């Protein structure tokens, strides 16, 4: 058994954990703090991890920091919901607003590999129109990138992650065949499919970032359903076992248990490196360029915490928009009981999906949503039952006995960007002495209309599939977005299409926070496609001396 991943950094002494072998190591190039590396990347999740690999593969020197530990999936991931809380960003944050967002496991990870280490692997492309939703659909904001270009990067990331998906995807423009075949449906997915068929809607096996056949050293999925608590077979294709090993092989250095507290800038408004806390002390890594990829709460927080006299309102904040337009995706659900045994915890939770309402615009609100199968593990399920049905004690115990017959569907919806939903700095400090993030959020009327519509539709579909004793989980939200939005006007956005700050030319932000709109699908594939594009753009910019 390897050492405690929280006790001291594992990526050290010229080596990093080999995630595919118990106790194994891979050699890793290391840099000194004084070496001016090409890129210091803050965060190693969907955005940062992907960029670290691509930039290193293009020959840049890279150091990527993560506040979280470097886990070994084969050893550190227990089949225990409570123990696995260790994957989440559970550091304090202040939440407020009309609909305060519950932070932690639902929306943020803190490990090398980022939130993808415990993500549910649903890997969807945006509907093409969403990249120009203001001009084509009349709401939200336009992205500074077109869908055709994104389509190419989606192809690339789907290959890199060996996404297992259906032979034919029922919606949107044609896409190449998914690299791996879809997974078999579990009973919960079949209920979704029957419900959709009864309502005349299309459905499909969900494209998932977990392999249905061996891939290199990764085993195929064993359908035990611990996906959101860390996949211990490496079937899940997270950043941790895909781009991170690639990054290290290409010469990047990963620093685990390394919290970046501040980005340093000089008098010419250029970033010069990052202050980070590791091994019990603050240190400074020199860098020619800095990329922030800490997700939609930590990225704006770091920018705000890096304020100087020249950047009083935070770094890269000339527009005043850092921390604004926070979005979270509605994640409401409808549950009920089946007369047949379901055992919904068997397999990845979302094996089937319908994107019907992402592509059908006959509704009286803006935005779209999809819904997918569910398989909450017992503790999560008990929490859902208490919160949604208000039952406790003996009644709860009895209700839990229906666990294997329970079935449900959950939405992922599009939240409208609103300037009033924000990430700012609170007065409280965290254990590093840094002001913590204050997250303020409330649903808009449009969001509420969308949620109502989705709940009604999901309920009808379950009813049509013969599910009884239905109840709604009306309060839930998951993925985050916005807060460092990209655009093609420096007055209305923080970064440009290349994820480059308008104000600090050698500072990039590349993660879920750059989304001007979130669309009605899970975000990580889009984040990674943007990261791949950003790496290509950086290479081009560097080639013409623009970096």
């Amino acid at each position, binding site marked *: 058994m390897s050492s405690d991943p929280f006790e001291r950094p594992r990526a050290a002494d010229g080596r990093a954990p080999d995630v595919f072998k118990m106790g194994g190591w891979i050699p890793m190039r290391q840099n000194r703090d004084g070496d001016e590396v090409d890129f210091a990347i803050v965060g190693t999740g969907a955005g940062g991890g992907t960029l670290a690999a691509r930039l290193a593969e293009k020959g840049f020197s890279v150091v990527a920091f993560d506040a979280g530990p470097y886990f070994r999936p084969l050893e550190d991931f227990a089949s225990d919901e409570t123990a696995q809380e260790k994957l989440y960003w559970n550091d304090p944050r202040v939440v407020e607003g009309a609909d305060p967002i519950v932070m932690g496991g639902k929306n943020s990870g803190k490990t090398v590999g980022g939130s993808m280490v415990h993500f549910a692997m649903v890997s969807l492309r945006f509907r093409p129109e969403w990249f120009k939703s203001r001009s084509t659909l009349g709401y939200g904001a336009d992205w500074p990138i077109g869908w055709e270009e994104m389509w190419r990067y989606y192809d690339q990331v789907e290959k890199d992650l060996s996404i297992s998906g259906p032979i034919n995807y029922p919606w949107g423009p044609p896409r190449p065949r998914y690299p791996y075949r879809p997974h078999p*449906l579990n009973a919960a997915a079949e209920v979704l499919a029957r419900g959709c*068929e009864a309502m005349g809607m299309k459905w499909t096996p969900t494209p998932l970032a977990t392999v249905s056949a061996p891939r290199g050293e990764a085993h195929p999925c064993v359908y035990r359903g611990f996906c959101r608590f860390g996949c211990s077979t490496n079937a899940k294709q997270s950043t941790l076992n895909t781009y991170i090993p690639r990054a290290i092989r290409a010469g990047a250095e990963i620093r685990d248990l390394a919290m970046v507290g501040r980005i340093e800038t000089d008098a010419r408004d250029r970033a010069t490196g990052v202050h980070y806390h590791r091994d019990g002390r603050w240190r400074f890594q020199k860098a020619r360029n800095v990329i922030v990829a800490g997700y939609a709460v930590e990225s704006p927080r770091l920018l705000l915490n890096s304020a100087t006299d020249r950047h009083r309102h935070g770094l890269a904040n000339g527009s005043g928009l850092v921390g604004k337009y926070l979005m979270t995706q509605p994640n409401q659900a409808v549950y009920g009981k089946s007369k047949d045994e379901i055992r919904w915890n068997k397999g990845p939770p979302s094996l089937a999906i319908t994107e019907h309402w992402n592509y059908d615009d006959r509704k009286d609100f803006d935005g779209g949503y999809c819904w997918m199968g569910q398989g909450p593990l017992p503790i999560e399920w008990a929490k859902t039952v208490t919160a949604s049905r208000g039952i406790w004690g003996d009644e709860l115990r009895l209700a839990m006995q229906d666990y294997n017959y329970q079935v449900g569907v959950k939405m992922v919806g599009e939240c409208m960007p609103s300037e009033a939903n924000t990430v700012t700095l609170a007065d409280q400090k965290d254990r590093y002495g840094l002001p913590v993030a204050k997250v303020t959020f409330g649903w808009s009327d449009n969001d509420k209309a969308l949620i109502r519509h989705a709940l009604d539709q999901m309920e009808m579909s379950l009813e049509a599939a013969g599910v009884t004793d239905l109840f709604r989980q009306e309060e839930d939200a998951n993925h985050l977005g916005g807060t460092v939005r990209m655009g093609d006007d420096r007055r209305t956005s923080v970064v440009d299409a290349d994820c480059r700050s308008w104000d600090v030319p050698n500072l990039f932000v590349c993660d879920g926070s750059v989304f001007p709109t979130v669309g009605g699908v899970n975000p990580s594939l889009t984040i990674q496609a943007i990261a791949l594009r950003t790496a290509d753009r950086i290479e081009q910019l560097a080639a013409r001396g623009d970096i």
Partner: protein
Amino acid sequence: MRSMVEKRLGATHPRMTIMSGPTREADFADLVDDPAPAHVAREPRPGAPLRGYSHSVEIGQVRMVHGAAAMLAMSVLADSGIEHSRGQYHNPAMFTPLVSSTLSILASLDGAARSETSAHPLRLASYGIAMVVGLVGTAFHVHNITKKPGGFSWENLFYQAPIGAPAALSLSGLLGLAAEGIRDEKPGESPKLLGLPAAPALAGLTALGLLGTTAEVSLLHFRGNFQNPLMYLPVALPPIAAALTAEAALRPHKRPRPQAKLWLGITAALGVAGVAAHAYGTHRYSGGWKNWRQNLVDGPPIPAPPAFSGLALAGFAALALLERHGDD
């Protein structure tokens, strides 16, 4: 052939067993008391043909075809045993292929061991049952797919009850019947299988079986994404053997077919190598061979590839029969 001679002569003339016939004067002296010396046996007696002899030449092929039937049945037994126990025999009908394939194996072993010259009703029955159970099974599996959401979709073809699997049982039954047909040869006639000349029919059956098996392998290896390039071999190679065997069925001339034999040989070897490849594949599942109880079920089916070897065996028998009974 020699064994038949032995049977006739061995008891009284042990020395004769190593000879193909009398060659020296002394030998003829030895033969004086013999009621049916070897040299006489060459001439069929009018009205009472020595069926034993004519069969003695073909019993080898009969055995091969029984062997082929047994191998397919064993594949079915092991495969449906694993798959149906994974399905927890939720429908009692799921026991049927286990029983039927076992009967088919027993019939084949019995058939291969015996040199008798006529078909046996119990063997015929076992093979007949296999044929029918295979057909019914196919219908069942097809029905199951149509009941699933998505109907005849790629996904259901990948993961629902495999359509091709019960067909292998029918094939085993048909091969068994072919063996019985050859065994039951009437003098002066070439053997028959379901009323057709046995040799080309067997060749045709082999070709179809090879193609069907290849189709199933293609589907499953596609499902496994051809993640190991070796997975292309059983998709690419058996059709060549199938084509050459089909050619023999369609143009059943009496001639040697070294190409067809070569490719049947390769196909047979592929069936054996497939077991090793699947064993290797099993090791790539979580926990590898240490976790064999799970991975034998979840990993690539180890008993499946020898179906190719069984079919190749049937193909060899068909070619050998053609060399004797083919058109001139």
